[in-house]
């Protein structure tokens, strides 16, 4: 459970130490793309740059013990529940503003490389469907509320194929995302399904009508002219919150205690990562600082 009252919240924080503040920073390794979103996990900083190691087309679940770089947020607290209390962000870059920073819980990913990127056709994924067993791998029961994106793991080559992802919904029924058109030569972390052009979806791939989540990634289908090179991931995540950043150097803070719905939950095992939206092309070496405070009761 969370807190029973505002008194309980302040008691748990000030007397019992059930909460803390986290500070992270990332530095962009390449210039961004105007109007597109970028997954910051692959960029240097704290946590360190992730390379999304794994076997091609095999789903890799991630949690707060992921060896490639995740944020420590106090460990497991069940049967208590952990929540965000506030979050702040700032960007320092000569170009790119205004920005939005979105926190996500990256539940897992599917890596694709080699001919799984440089050829068209159906790329079948190996994944055990998320259940409702209460483990950290299925911390969102049956994938409820999960969203998908396709991001560059390493910079992509020429060409812009179309792409669709087939999945199972929260009830195990087959579904398919809306088809999107990729963009040639996107840099590390940039979401192929986003941007300021036709057939882009920002930041997540639309699910089939009525679907509220994803329990299993079945396949990715490229069509048209394949990317000449590069590696990508299919990301599976839960959106948590968003902080707007109006201009370079401005710090913006969001209070979740007095918001509605209030205090987004951090499930045990959450792998907290960040997506960046940029109005213009953010300068290479631009710095993104994000902090948040969390707490738990019980």
């Amino acid at each position, binding site marked *: 459970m969370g807190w029973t009252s505002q008194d309980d919240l302040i008691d748990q924080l000030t007397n019992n130490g059930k909460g803390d503040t986290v500070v992270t920073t990332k530095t962009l390794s390449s210039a961004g793309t*105007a*109007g597109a*979103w970028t997954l910051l996990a692959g960029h240097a900083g704290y946590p360190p740059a992730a390379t999304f190691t794994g076997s091609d087309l095999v789903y890799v679940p991630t949690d707060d013990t992921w060896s490639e770089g995740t944020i420590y947020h106090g460990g497991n607290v069940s049967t208590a529940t952990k929540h965000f209390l506030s979050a702040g962000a700032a960007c320092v870059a000569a170009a790119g*503003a*205004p920005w*939005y920073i*979105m926190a996500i819980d990256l539940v897992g990913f599917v890596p694709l490389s080699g001919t799984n990127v440089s050829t068209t056709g159906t790329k079948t994924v190996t994944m055990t469907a998320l259940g409702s067993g209460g483990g950290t791998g299925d911390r969102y029961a049956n994938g*409820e*509320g*999960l969203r998908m994106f396709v991001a560059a793991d390493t910079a992509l080559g020429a060409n812009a194929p179309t792409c669709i992802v087939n999945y199972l919904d*929260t009830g195990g029924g087959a579904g398919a995302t809306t088809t999107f058109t990729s963009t040639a030569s996107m840099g590390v972390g940039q979401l192929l399904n*986003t*941007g*300021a*052009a*036709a*057939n*882009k*979806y*920002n*930041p*997540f791939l*639309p*699910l*089939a*009508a*009525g679907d*509220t*989540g994803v329990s299993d990634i079945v396949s990715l289908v490229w069509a048209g002219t394949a990317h000449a090179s590069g590696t990508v991931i299919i990301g599976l995540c839960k*959106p948590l919150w*968003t902080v*707007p950043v*109006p*201009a*370079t*150097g*401005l710090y*913006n803070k969001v209070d979740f205690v007095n*918001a*509605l*719905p*209030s205090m*987004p*939950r951090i499930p045990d095992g959450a792998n907290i990562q960040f997506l960046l*939206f940029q*109005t*213009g092309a953010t300068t290479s070496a631009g710095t993104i600082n994000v902090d948040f405070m969390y707490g738990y009761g019980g």
Partner: protein
Amino acid sequence: MGFPAVSEYAAADEAGQTWISSFRKAVASAATTANAWIDYTYFAGSPVANFYASTPLTAALVEPDKGIYTGGNVSPATKHLKNLMLMSSGSTTAGRQQVALCDYLLYYPFIDTDAIGEEQVFDNTVTLPRYSSGQVVAVAQSAASTLGQFTFSYTNQDGVAGRVSQVNFTFAVAGGGQVVNASGAGASFNPFCYLQAGDSGVRSIESVTMSAAGGGLMCLVIVKPLLITQGSPPCITTGGNSFGACTEFASIIHQAGAPRIVDGAVLGILATGYAGTLASSFLSGLLESTWG
């Protein structure tokens, strides 16, 4: 149904019954008129530009991909606006906009504003897809050279045909996408056309008649306003100093209830700056919907 309790409004988030989309629109380089309205759907970006390019004088629906994606149809649940964030940038006058989030319903393209005295009759084979009526916006589809005047014949919110609007003015604009309806001899800029006294909405438009030439092309668009709010000052860095803020609208907290987004809605934004031109500026936003 919607949300019978605040707890269920919050629970929808846990149940994945929300969708979040970002959008980014880049106003074209042609100067816009200070204090007049613009139609952001007309400009490039995400969603893609909506040029109202279809058969002249024939009613048509705005394609879904021209609107901000909100998560698809959810019936029998009802979908609502949960959060809206807006930031403008690119020029020192881009901010401080009055903003109207609208559901774009039906449009009548390529009206010749030079056709003085000629009744331009519309084909209404395609009818209003949502709601029983809406407000009328006149959107320029080209530059316009001078002050024009027009009235239009329409069917009102109660289904009464043969209603005739008050005289609406158009004015000179440098390019398409600018809202050209005005009153007060063309100097009082309005988002929506003036209707016959006593009417609150329009179900269909049967014809339009220009009584003074406007020197351009325009489109009449029927929209349903969902939310009218204000944009903050522009997000800029100049002289080494940064300025700006994000407009954040949260349903329930900032107003009672949450505006409804009906299945099939095509959401876009009308806006007016308070000073100078919005040319070459950007509007970047985030829209979150939720359903019960």
